[in-house]
C-alpha cells in the first residue's frame, strides 16, 4: 500500500482552528479555517453577498450557517457568540450541528489538488490526550473524525497526539527527544518524546476558551470580543491598560501554572520516563503561546517548578499556529 501513496496531508483539528498542511513534491502549503460557525436568518440577498465574497456557508432549516474564518467577524458584527463544533479538544456533544459543521470545515481546508486521488493520499490528523478519566471522549472523537475523513474519500487515515506532533515539527535536531506543549483553544496538550517515542502525554482542560470565558465573566464582555482583543493586542508587559488586559494576564498565568504543575506531576508519577543523560528542549506551540512575553513567563514558571527532567531551553515554535499540522504531516511522511 505504501508504494501507492502519492500525497501526504497533516491535519490539525483543534478546538478553535482547523489547519491542513500538505506536501506535493517539494512544495508545502497550509490551509486554515476557524473551527466555528454562526447562524444567520436566510435571505436571498445575504446568500448572494456571501457567494460573491467566497465566504463558505451552507443553508439549513431556513438559516444560513457561515463557517470558518468569517464567522467570528460576522458574530461580532451581529452581537452573537460563535458556535463551536468542538469544545475542550473534542467534538461538542451539546452542539446539534457539530458533525455537519466539522465536515464542512474539514472539506474547506482539504480541497483536493488538481488530479489528486484521495485513495492514494495519506492523511494524519491530530488528537488530544484524553483528560484523566475521560478516555471515552477520545475514542468517540477519533472514530467520528475517521468516519468524516472516510466520507470525504480518504482511506489511509492515521492519527497523532497533538503534543507529539509539536515534537515532530520542531525537534528534529535532538532526534525528536523533548517536550512538546501545544496551547490550543480547548486544551493544552503536553507530550514528552524520547527518540520519537511518546513516553508521556497528557492534557489540561485550560486553553484559549478557558481564558476567554473566564475573562469575559469578570469583565462583563462577550467571550468572542475577549478573543478578538486577546489575539490582536494582548501581550505580557506587567502594565495593564484596562481591565480586559488585566483579566487576560491573570488567566494566562493560571493556564501556565496548570500546565507546569501538570507536567511536574506527570513526570514524577510516570514509570515510563527514561533517565535523560542530557537536558531536553521544550517547544511551545499553538495560538495560546503567541502573545509577546508568553515564553518568558513560561520559563519562569518552569524554573520555579524544578522538574525531574531538566530542560535545556524553552523555545517558541517557528509558526505556532501551524506546528501541529506540520508535525502531523511529518508523521504521515515518515510512516
Amino acid at each position, binding site marked *: 500500500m505504501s508504494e501507492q501513496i502519492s500525497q501526504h496531508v497533516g491535519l490539525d483539528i483543534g478546538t478553535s482552528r482547523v489547519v491542513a498542511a500538505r506536501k506535493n513534491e517539494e512544495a508545502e502549503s497550509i490551509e486554515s479555517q476557524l473551527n466555528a460557525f454562526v447562524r444567520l436568518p436566510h435571505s436571498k440577498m445575504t446568500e448572494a453577498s456571501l457567494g460573491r465574497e467566497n465566504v463558505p456557508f451552507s443553508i439549513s432549516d431556513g438559516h444560513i450557517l457561515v463557517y470558518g474564518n468569517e464567522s467570528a467577524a460576522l458574530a461580532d458584527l451581529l452581537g452573537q457568540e460563535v458556535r463551536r463544533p468542538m469544545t475542550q479538544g473534542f467534538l461538542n456533544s451539546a452542539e446539534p450541528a457539530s458533525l455537519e459543521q466539522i465536515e464542512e470545515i474539514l472539506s474547506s481546508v482539504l480541497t483536493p489538488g488538481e488530479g489528486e486521488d484521495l485513495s492514494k493520499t495519506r492523511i494524519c490528523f491530530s488528537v488530544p490526550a484524553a483528560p484523566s478519566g475521560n478516555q471515552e471522549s*477520545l475514542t468517540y472523537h477519533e472514530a467520528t473524525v475517521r468516519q468524516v475523513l472516510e466520507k470525504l474519500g480518504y482511506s489511509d487515515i492515521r492519527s497523532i497526539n497533538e503534543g507529539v506532533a509539536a515534537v515532530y515539527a520542531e525537534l528534529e535536531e535532538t532526534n525528536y527527544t523533548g517536550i512538546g506543549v501545544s496551547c490550543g483553544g480547548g486544551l493544552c496538550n503536553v507530550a514528552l518524546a524520547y527518540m520519537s517515542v511518546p513516553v508521556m502525554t497528557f492534557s489540561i482542560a485550560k486553553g484559549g476558551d478557558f481564558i476567554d470565558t473566564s475573562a469575559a465573566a469578570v469583565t462583563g464582555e462577550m467571550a468572542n470580543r475577549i478573543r478578538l482583543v486577546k489575539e490582536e493586542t494582548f501581550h505580557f508587559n506587567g502594565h495593564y491598560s484596562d481591565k480586559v488586559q488585566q483579566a487576560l494576564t491573570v488567566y494566562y498565568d493560571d493556564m501556565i501554572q496548570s500546565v507546569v504543575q501538570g507536567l511536574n506531576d506527570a513526570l514524577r508519577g510516570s514509570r515510563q520516563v527514561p533517565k535523560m543523560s542530557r537536558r531536553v528542549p521544550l517547544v511551545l506551540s499553538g495560538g495560546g503561546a503567541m502573545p509577546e512575553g508568553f515564553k518568558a513567563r513560561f520559563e519562569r514558571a518552569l524554573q520555579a517548578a524544578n522538574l525531574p527532567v531538566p530542560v535545556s531551553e524553552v523555545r517558541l515554535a517557528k509558526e505556532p499556529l501551524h506546528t501541529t499540522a506540520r508535525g502531523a504531516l511529518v508523521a504521515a511522511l515518515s510512516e
Partner: protein
Amino acid sequence: MKGERRLGVFVHSIIGMARQTRVPGRIAGAAVGLRASRIDDPVQRLRFLRRTVGDRCPWSPAVIRESGWWRGNRGKIAVAAAALLAWPVLEVSQGVSGFLSAVPVVSAKTGSIESYPNVWLLEAGAGSEVWSNGLRIERRFEVANQPSAFQAYPHRQDRPPVKMTAPVGIVYHTTESHLAPLEERQNKRLKIIGETLLGFIRENKAYHYVIDRFGRVWRVVRDTDEANHAGNSVWADGEYSYLNLNRGFLGVSVETQTAASGEETPATPAQIHSLKVLTEMLRSKYRIVAGNCITHAQVSVNPSNNQVGYHYDWAAKFPYIEAGLPDNYEKAPPAIWMYGFTYDPSLVTVTGARYWRGLLKAEVRLREDATAHGVGPEAYRKSLSQRYRALFGRMKSRAEASAEAKQKAMKESAE
C-alpha cells in the same frame, strides 16, 4: 535493498537485546541516537527512529538491570554498537519495519451490549485491598514488570491494528505445582509450599493473580504490567483478535493440578468463591466482556505444528457457571476459525465433551467461511494460517520469546 535489510536487522538486534535482556539502555540508546543523527533528512530520520525504536520506550527506568548478564555480554554489545555506528548511512526502507508505528491508543471497551458487575474499592493499605464484594487481595508478593501495551487486530483486515493498554480479558490457569493434602495437620507444609510457590511466581512474573489453596487472592504482577502467563496464544471478541496474551489479558492462576482428583473440578469451594469475586472485580474495574474470560487451554497455540491446545490448563472442568460467567467452553476457539489452526485428536480425549463442543463449532464455522469465500476448507485454512504467520512474524520479539521460555521453565520446574 539487501544492505538496508541488513541494517534493519542489525539495529533490531541492538534494540532486541535491550528489550529482551534488559541491557543497560544508554548503550543501545546512544547507538541508535548517533546513527539517527547521521541522517540529514528530518523525515527519513524520524522514519528510522520510529521503525527501530518502535512504539514504546525500551529504556524504562522501571526495568531491573541484570548486572551479571551485562558483565558477560558487554563485549558483544560494544562490538555491535561500534559496527552499527560504522554502518554507512542508508535510506531506511519499508522493509526495516519490525515494530509497528504509532497507532491510536483506545479504550479496551468493545462497545457491545454487556452487563458488568458493580464492584468498588472499599479500602486499600500497603499490604492488602478490600473490595465491596468481599474480595480481599493480598499484596505482599506484588511486583512491577514491563508496562503492558499491545496491539488489537480489527476483524476488518483493511483496518490498522489498534494500540491498547488496559486489560481486555482474563486467562485462567492452574499452577500445576506440588500439592499437600488439604488437612489441618498439614498446615505447616501447606504454608511452606504456598509461600515457595508465590516466591517462584513473583520471581518469574508468571501471573497477575494467584488463588492459593485456602482461597486467598494474591496479586503478584500489577494489572497494568505484562506477566509471562500465556505465551503463544490467540483469542478474539466481537471487534478484535489478540495474539500473545501476556499483554492485555490478566493471568489468574489457581493453586491446583489438572489431574489432582477425579472430582468435577480440581478447585476447592474457597477457590471457586475467590474466582467469582476476583472475576467480578476485574470485570467491573476494566469493563471486561464475559466472553473474554477464558482458560489457558482455550487460547494456547503452538505455531511450530499449527495446533491449538499446547497448554492444557483448565482444558476441562473450569467452573465457569460457579465463577459467575457463561459456559465459555461453548465458544469456538478463534485460533481455528480465524487463523487456521488445527488440533490434535488427543485434545478431545483430554478435554472431554465440554471443550469439544467449541472445537466442533470452530470447524463448522471455518467450513462455512470457506464456502462464503468460494474456496475449499483446506485452501481457506491455509490462507488463514498465512495471515497468522504474517502477524506473528511481525510481533514476535525476542523479549516475548524470552518470556515464553521463562514460563516454560517455571512450569517444568513446578512439575
